[in-house]
């Protein structure tokens, strides 16, 4: 586990890469994020764990403002998330996101899925973007599928393309919102392997997952959420072997007992 920042990510501020201060969000009467305070350091791999409905996905989606927040402050690399418009789009380009349901652009080829962001958002030349895309697709092992449409690929392959698509933007931080939950069991490892390799290269990552194996292999820190609150945080080893809170013990008991 290395914690060196990627050389491609110049440190523009010495502070934490991602910081959340007193973040609150409601869905109607439901208080889904309760006064969340969290800092993620450059190069850190953070795993977010918790029962469904605990707010962990909402937390992940709030970090690039796919979910709005009611109050509090979220900053990426020292810059507070703007509410709307061009500035928000620009900031989002720095935050890679991988979704549970892959969300590859269904009408575009695998290659186009990866080149679209660099060309249309960053103004990269088509040839250069293609080269970058092919190297990223090769890295995640799907370069031989470049001309196909997403629907022609397996779930595991699609998710690896989604990782390549996010990496093509050279993001400062990568968010993973339950990246393996929609996959058939035999495809989970190919995606986790790609994520572990990314973590070892020093990418800052926030990963919402139930994959204990991944947390043990790659995470620097685990946070456990329940009812919209961060209940506990620790190193993976500490958390899985010696959880402090009743809620965490209960949760781990349920998912580890079989």
């Amino acid at each position, binding site marked *: 586990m290395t914690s060196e920042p990627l050389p491609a990510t110049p440190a523009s501020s010495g502070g934490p890469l991602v910081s959340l201060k007193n973040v609150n969000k409601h869905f109607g009467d439901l208080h889904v994020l309760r006064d969340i305070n969290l800092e993620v350091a450059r190069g850190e791999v953070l795993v977010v764990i918790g029962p469904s409905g605990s707010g962990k996905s909402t937390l992940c989606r709030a970090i690039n403002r*796919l979910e709005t927040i009611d109050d509090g402050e979220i900053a990426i690399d020292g810059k507070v998330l703007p509410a709307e418009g061009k500035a928000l*789009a620009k900031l*989002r*380009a720095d935050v890679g996101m991988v979704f549970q349901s892959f*969300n*590859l652009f269904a*009408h575009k080829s695998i290659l186009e899925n990866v080149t679209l962001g660099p060309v249309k958002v960053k103004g990269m030349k088509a040839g250069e973007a293609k080269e970058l895309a092919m190297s990223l697709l090769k890295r995640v092992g799907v370069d031989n599928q470049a001309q196909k449409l997403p*629907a022609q690929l397996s779930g595991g392959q699609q998710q690896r393309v989604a990782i390549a698509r996010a990496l093509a933007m050279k993001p400062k931080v990568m968010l993973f919102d339950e990246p393996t939950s929609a996959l058939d069991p035999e495809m989970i490892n190919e995606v986790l392997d790609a994520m572990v390799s990314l973590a070892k290269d020093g990418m800052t990552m926030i990963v919402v997952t139930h994959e204990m194996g991944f947390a043990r292999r790659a995470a620097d820190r685990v946070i456990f959420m329940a009812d919209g609150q961060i209940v506990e945080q620790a190193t993976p080893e500490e958390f899985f072997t010696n959880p402090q809170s009743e809620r965490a013990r209960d949760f781990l008991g349920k998912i580890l007992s079989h």
Partner: protein
Amino acid sequence: MENYLSLFETYDVPAAFWVNIQLSFWAALWALALGTVLALFRISPIPSLQWFGAAYVNIFRNTPLTIILAFGFLGLFSVMQISLASELNVSLFRIAIVGLALYHAAFVCEAIRSGVNTVPLGQAEAARAIGLSFLPAARLIILPQAFRGAIAPLGNVLIALIKNSTVAAAGSVAAEASGLMKTMIEFRSDLVFPIFLTFALGFVILVIPVGLLTTWASRKLAVAR
């Protein structure tokens, strides 16, 4: 039979249909353009644009086409002297196109919106997540998929438009098919039913290929998910 065939020597039926085809073609183009803009308004994050789109659709979708075309001819052209060309016939023809386009744009908008509903929310989220703002995301990701999902309903709008082009008679475009039919029935009352059937069949022949083509295209171009 000879009687019936003599109709075609006296009256230029294909020319009348040609007027309807031209009306439909131009009105369809303008309606598609305007309807797309309206659909963008309705799905945009800006409340005032959403409101405008919804107001437009509700007004034009719920107003009879005859009223719109009669207003164009009597109100805009005759009373207010708004002319779209120096020649009278061309001006009336263009006013009819504008009326048809304004009316059908409301239906095009709703057809495209139904197409947008076939695009999963995740597509828009993924587009935003790589840093595309609303317009590029709509142009590159949402609309291309929405149009493919909207081909069948758009085809239905086009079919309605072709048939509705006969209402241009209410806007004094006399040369179009229903206007000619009226004249023919007036002067050849011995052949009322053959005349009616001729025009009915003419429209069936015009419209059936549109239906077949859009059904074929909506299957062929469907986005695989």
